[in-house]
């Protein structure tokens, strides 16, 4: 059945289809309509779940931790400052290996205060032991959220499904809604090993003395590595059942490309348009989209980018004092690997600033020049920056 849904409705619909038993969340723009929609589903009887009202995001995720530990499927959603307030508990959720699924609607961070989209929020918690998947459109949001529960529950890892605020969250598209019976077959009833149960007491969250802590971190890292294969496996099964497949990365006209754009999230769609205009002129420009940022698809990117002359990494985040997070990981993938493409980083679209085809073309031109000369003059640049107002000479 097709329905016209915005990104937030797609996420809420996926949580409903997954028959989540506990939702705990705190309203924050632009995520709010997800949990409003879920509250509505629960109130009108469409979803049999407990909605736990809390006083903050810190409590929202804490409530999800408690719920997930008692053996029920759990969901929450947040954005930006909310994710920051959760950050302490993010590490607890992954450390306890609780398979919570959370939507993060990407929004920039204060200060200055902004409600608009960029990916600085989820990028800031990339080291928290959560699987991070980035979606390009609303269909992908619904499908990825369903897949997220499978991956989370089979590997005991929390999964964060990220998508761009407003650009997807508040923009409606026709999307295919799978039948409940089919989703039930895809997502079996949640079963947590050794749940909290008064009849059979367990200890959760004990002290990790120096003799033990390192092993638990290693096990978490191994589970994150294993999630790569699991994501592919679940994706393939999803395709058999529902006909759609996404992959850890997507290669768009990139196989023979000299210059490749590397993107994440909704920016990929605009960049694909730009790739098409170059291809029409016979220029070998392609795009690779990263869907799974954690685990990071190192092998897949070496395969997809290795033959290119130059790669332009466009991203809506910056690790201040260094470079963009996607760029850093992509560049690190090629350590000890030859041939390796030249890499350029373009910081763009912060706090909802539009990334226009003209700007993307500027990145392509810079990468093409690097490919031609074999030199990169400046690795990290800003697209769409108003140079004069920050005192730069143009």
């Amino acid at each position, binding site marked *: 059945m097709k329905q016209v849904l915005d990104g937030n409705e797609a996420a809420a619909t996926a949580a409903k289809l997954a028959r989540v038993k506990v939702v705990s969340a705190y309203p924050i723009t632009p995520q709010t309509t997800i949990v409003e929609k879920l509250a509505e589903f629960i109130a009108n009887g469409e979803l049999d779940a407990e909605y736990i009202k809390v006083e903050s995001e810190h409590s929202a995720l804490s409530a999800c931790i408690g719920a997930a530990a008692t053996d029920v499927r759990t969901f929450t959603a947040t954005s930006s400052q909310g994710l920051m307030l959760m950050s302490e508990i993010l590490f607890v959720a992954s*450390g*306890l*290996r*609780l398979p919570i699924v959370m939507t993060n609607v990407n929004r920039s961070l204060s200060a200055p205060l902004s409600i608009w989209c960029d990916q600085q929020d989820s990028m800031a918690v990339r080291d928290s032991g959560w699987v991070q998947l980035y979606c390009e459109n609303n269909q992908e949001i619904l499908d990825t959220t369903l897949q997220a529960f499978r991956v989370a529950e089979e590997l*005991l890892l929390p999964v964060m499904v990220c998508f761009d605020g407003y650009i997807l969250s508040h923009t409606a598209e026709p999307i295919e809604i799978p039948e409940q019976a089919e989703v039930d077959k895809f997502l079996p009833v949640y079963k947590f090993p*050794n749940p909290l149960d008064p009849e059979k*007491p*367990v*200890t*959760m*969250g*004990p002290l*990790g003395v120096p003799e*033990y802590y390192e*092993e*638990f971190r290693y*096990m978490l890292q191994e*589970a994150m590595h294993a999630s790569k294969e699991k994501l592919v496996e679940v994706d393939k099964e999803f395709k058999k059942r529902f006909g759609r497949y996404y992959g850890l990365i997507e290669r768009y006209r990139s196989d023979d490309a000299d210059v490749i754009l590397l993107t994440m999230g909704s920016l990929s769609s605009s960049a694909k348009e730009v790739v098409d205009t170059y291809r029409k002129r016979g220029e070998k420009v392609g795009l690779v989209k990263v869907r799974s940022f954690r685990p990071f698809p190192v092998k897949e990117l070496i395969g997809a980018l290795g033959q290119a002359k130059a790669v332009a990494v466009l991203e809506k985040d910056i690790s201040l004092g260094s470079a963009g997070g996607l760029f850093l990981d992509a560049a690190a993938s090629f350590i000890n690997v030859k041939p390796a493409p030249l890499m350029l980083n373009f910081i763009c679209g912060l706090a909802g600033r539009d990334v226009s085809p003209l700007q993307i073309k500027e990145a392509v031109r810079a990468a093409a020049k690097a490919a031609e000369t074999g030199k990169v003059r400046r690795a990290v640049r800003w697209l769409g920056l108003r140079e004069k107002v920050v005192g730069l000479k143009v």
Partner: protein
Amino acid sequence: MSLKPGAIITEPGSSVRYETGSWRTFRPVIDANKCTGCGLCWLYCPDAAVGKGKPPEIDYRYCKGCGICANECPFKAISMVAEERE
């Protein structure tokens, strides 16, 4: 023993599993000639590592060398001897 994901412990805590003897830097040694078998060392040992008897046996897997027994012994029958690496 293999660790469970998330550090979940599925059995109640047990000091039997935790061999505190590895902490020891001084080892209590009992002089059988002075020991009267009064049992005060057995009573005071916080790890139940001292048995009853004359002289009592000490379970060095759990004796962490705190020296309480030597301090309490009214007959000065217990001396603390430094552990030496072989």
